[in-house]
Every structure is written in C-alpha cells, then in structure tokens.
C-alpha cells in the first residue's frame, strides 16, 4: 500500500497541496483527474518522494517513505515523468536498461537483460532497440520510457509485497490507439498485482480503464470513488468550469463525458 495522508505542501509561497489523501493498493488502477494547477503532479511527486510534504505522512507498506532506503524504494515503485529527455547518443535498449540500475548488485545480469527485452516487447519498442534515442518521435520516446519504468518494477520484491507505477500524464504524445494500448498495459500491471496511479487529462480514458477516479481540486482530493460514482455531471462541471454531460450509450460499459451541447457546436463559436 502506497498512501498519502493529509499531506500539505507549499511551493514558492503558494499552497499546492492542502490536506490531500490518497491510497494506492495492490491491484488498483487509480486515475487522477483535475484542472491545470490543481496539484495532481505535486501529489504524484509527494507519493514518489521527489517532494517531501511540509505536513502529513506518506507511507509505503505502512512504513514512512523517509525511513526507506532510496534504492529499496526504487525497486518497488517507478515513475514515468512528463517529457523526459536523454542527452548523448544512447540507444533505446540502453535507455530501457537504465530502469534496471536500482537492481545493480541485487539481480544478475542475465535476468536484467531478460527483463529489458520483456519490457520492450510489452510496450512494442523491440524493433527500435538499436535505434538512437534522439532519432525517435515523441510517441516512440514515451513508449521507450514506459518500457524503462516497467523494467524497473518488473519483478516484485522477494517479500511478496507489491510494486507501484506512478504515471504523470502518460498519454502525452501518444496517438489514439497507443493511448488505449498504454492504459491496457497499466491495467495488466495492476491485474498482475501491482498498483498504478495515472494522471490523465481525458476523463473518458479514466472512465474506461480506472478502478477508481480521484478528482483533485485546489490541492485536495475532493472525490475518490469508482468511475460511475465519481463522474457526476455537477461535480465535473464545477471542478473543470465547463458544463458537461455524462452519457451512457448502448454497448458502453463505462460512462462517457461530453461537453454540454450549449458549450459546443455552432452557437458556442459565435
């Protein structure tokens, strides 16, 4: 269990987290949605220990994050950043292999290589393995980094506890098919016993794949529930400042969110 409890954080004199709480357990796929600047990324960074909250506690398997050794944490949770860059002419396979670096001295080289190949196969970048990273498109880079973070937490620790994936806007740069493919991969990771937290901008993607949706607003998690419960038209309209409707077309298992007719179409563009 990776959990933040009533965390508060001020950056540059501005409160970015104001008592946010969120728990991520094995098997969970939690989507975090919310308007720009609501504190979604800060919440993810606090959960990853990249930021230390001013108040409140973040725990991994019941132990405060600060008490863990950083290499131990790195073997249990991986973070997919927004738009990462790699300098110098690294090849794709080497970039993915960086995900295994927290395991140096813990796992042997052959199994590291197997994990790297498996992770590349999982995200469909095996054919790019010998390409220079700098020559890839934005979407290809995103999939390479997904392979890297998957390689980092491919094998759960010996004590049987779960691994966690924290994805910061993972669908950036991806085309429609790859957006869904990425969320299916996240779903498979959760189904195999891991926990996934993904910041998403598209509430429909969140509705389609997440077990739970957390809505963040003004540094707080204001809603944390299953999609059907979380996605209420009134809540979404108020949080995003845009009137929306939630519809359930025939054949769709999950709700669809669309802007209300009054705000789109010919009238709105006048």
């Amino acid at each position, binding site marked *: 269990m990776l959990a933040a409890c009533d965390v508060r954080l001020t950056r540059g004199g501005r409160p970015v987290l104001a008592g946010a709480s969120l728990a991520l357990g094995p098997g969970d796929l939690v989507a975090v949605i919310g308007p720009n600047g609501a504190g979604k990324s800060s919440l993810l960074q606090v959960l*990853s*220990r*990249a930021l230390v909250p001013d108040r409140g506690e973040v725990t991994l398997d019941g132990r405060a994050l600060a008490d863990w050794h*950083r*290499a*131990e*944490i*790195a*073997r249990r949770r*991986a*973070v997919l*950043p927004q738009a*990462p*860059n*790699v*300098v*110098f*002419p*690294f*090849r794709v*396979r*080497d970039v993915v292999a*960086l*995900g295994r*670096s*927290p395991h*140096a001295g813990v796992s042997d080289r*052959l199994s590291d*290589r*197997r994990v790297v*190949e*498996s992770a*590349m*196969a999982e995200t469909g970048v*095996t054919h790019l*393995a010998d390409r*220079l990273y*700098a020559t890839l498109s934005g979407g290809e880079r995103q999939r390479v980094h997904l392979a890297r973070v998957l390689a*980092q937490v491919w094998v759960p620790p010996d004590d049987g506890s779960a691994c966690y994936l924290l994805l910061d806007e993972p669908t950036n740069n991806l085309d429609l098919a790859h957006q869904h493919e990425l969320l299916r991969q996240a779903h498979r990771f959760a189904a195999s016993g891991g926990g996934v937290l993904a910041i998403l901008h598209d509430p429909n993607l969140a509705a389609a794949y997440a077990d739970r949706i957390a809505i963040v607003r003004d540094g707080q998690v204001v809603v944390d529930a299953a999609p059907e419960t979380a996605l209420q038209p009134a809540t979404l309209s108020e949080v995003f400042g845009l009137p929306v409707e939630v519809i359930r077309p025939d054949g769709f298992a999950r709700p669809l969110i669309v802007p209300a007719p009054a705000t789109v179409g010919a009238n709105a563009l006048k």
Partner: protein
Amino acid sequence: MTAAADGPRVGRRRISPAGLGLPACGLAAVGGFLLAVGHGAVQIAPGEVAAILGEQLGLIANADVTRAQETVLLAIRLPRAVLGLLVGAGLAVAGAALQGLFRNPLADPGLIGVSNGAALAAAATIVLGGAGVLGLPAWLVPHLLPISAFAGGVAATWLVYLIASREGTTDVAVMLLAGVALNAIVAAGIGLLIFLSNDQELRDLNFWLLGSLGGATWDRLAVSAPLILAPTLLLIAQGRRLNALLLGEVEAGHLGVAVERTKRTIVLLAAMAVGAAVALTGVIGFIGLVVPHLIRLLIGPDHRTLLPASILLGAALLLAADVLARTLALPAELPIGILTSTVGGPFFLWLLLRQRTQWAI
C-alpha cells in the same frame, strides 16, 4: 507460441563495442607510455626499457644498455611519462564526469572554474610570491606553487558550487553560468598580474600558463601523484549514477540515486583531479573536452565504460602530445598546451560539424 512460453528472446551475446574498445584504449595507453619513455635524443627500445627496469628490480644481472640510456630513462623519461599518464587520465576522466553531470557535451573541467582558479593562484605565487615566501619553512618553498594552484582550483570550484546552491539543491545550469562569470573575473586577475610582473616572472608565468610536463621528478611525483590518482580512480565508481543522471535529476532520484550527494562528490573529485593536474603541469586544454567525445564516438556513451576508457585514452593522447612537444622543435621544447589546443581545437570543430544534429539540445 513456444517463443512466448519461453519468454522473450534475449539478444545473442555479441562482442560489444565496449568489449573491444576498452582493451584498445589500454593498448593505446601502453603504446603512448613506451613511446614517451623510448623516443627522444637518446633512443631506448621497449626491450631495453624492460631490461633497465628488470635490472633495477634485481631480476636481470647485466642489462645490455648504455649508462646514458639508464640515466635518461630513470631520472628524466620515466617520471615525466608517469606524470603524463596521471595528468592525461585525470583531465580526461574529470571532463567525462562533468559532461555527464552537467548533461552538456561542451562542459570541460575549465568551465567550473578549476583551471583558471588554479592558474590565478599560481600566477599570484609567481608574481607576488617573493614576499610571501619569507617566514615559510624551507621544505615548503619548492612546493608552494603546486600547493597554491591546487588550493586555488578547488576554492574556485567551491565558490561556483556555493553560488549555484540554494536550499540544499544545486542548479547545474546556474553553476555553468557562474563558472563562466568567475572565469572572466579570474582572467582579468591574471591579466593584472601579467601587467605587474617583471621579465623573468613573465617568462615563468607564460610557461606555466601554456603547460608543460617538464620538471617532473620522483620527489614531486611522490607528493602529488596520490592527489590525482585517488580522485581519478574514485570517479570510475560513479558510472552507474552518471548514466541515471542523463535522464535528469528528478528521474535519477526516482531510480534511487542520491542526487545531491552524487553532484557534490563528482564536482569535488573532478576539482581535485584537475586542480592537482594543473598544479603540476600548468594549464593543458582540450584533453578533458575531446577525449570523452572520442570515446563516445568509438565505444558509446555508457559511463561505466566511458570513464575507464577516458582514463586510458587521455593518458595515451597526453603522452603522445608530450613526445611531439619534446621533439618537434629540438633542442627547444614546445609548451604542450599549445600543441593540445592546435590539434584539439580543429578536431573538435570537425567532430561538431560531423554530428551537428546529434548534439542539438
């Protein structure tokens, strides 16, 4: 579907570029060393080098060499070659580590102020040192120049580091800019000292600012070799962390790297290695900039091989440059800094034009 059952195929074990490149760099270093000890006014073949050394160690009774060969090798060439080995290795590995740390292919040991800080301290010692020597113990006086240069180099880097640090984190971009600013100030200081110096001081100063491996003795090596060797070897161990840092500092932290401690360690080790190198030989440019790029081109950018390979190739190139410096203008000796810069500058430009797209940041 059997392939899926067996798990994905692991690529066949090929001989990696690193597997060939590292021994090749080792051979280059050995070759450079044999050339450096053997070539010059008195020629000593590799077999004769081995014979003289064997005789010294008591392994061989009567080596078939002349007394002149023996003296030249033991008193002049060998300490000079060992110095070249150390300085080339230290400059190159510091350059490789700093380029990785700053994620900037143009980073050079000079950029964080260490070379110029050392140069300013050395210049001050040469020009103003006459008065300062009074009252110092006699054994210290011959070592005053290298000690002050080392202290100046490390102090300048520390200052740059302090300027770039705020609330426990260090902004590497600010650090590069602070280094540029400090270098300009220091260059003005050196200019002022040149203006104040008399003819003899000017000659000393000029010789020192252009770099030379001359004047290497076993006594001086004994004092300063550990100061280069220790940080050089310690930097090799930073390979995995430097690889992770290429993704960015936050991402390296996610991979379990203690980012701030790693930055401090690398800056300090690089400043020590370069400070000690500059203290012994003066300012020798381009080795720290060019060697890591050569290795990336030949072997690849993985720091776990880049760092040791830079050590070997840096040593080889500096030794080769010193042989040219000693023999091109016989009986005079060219300052080695002129040589490394005249060869290194155009070479670097060629490299830049060849791979312009790759270096776009």
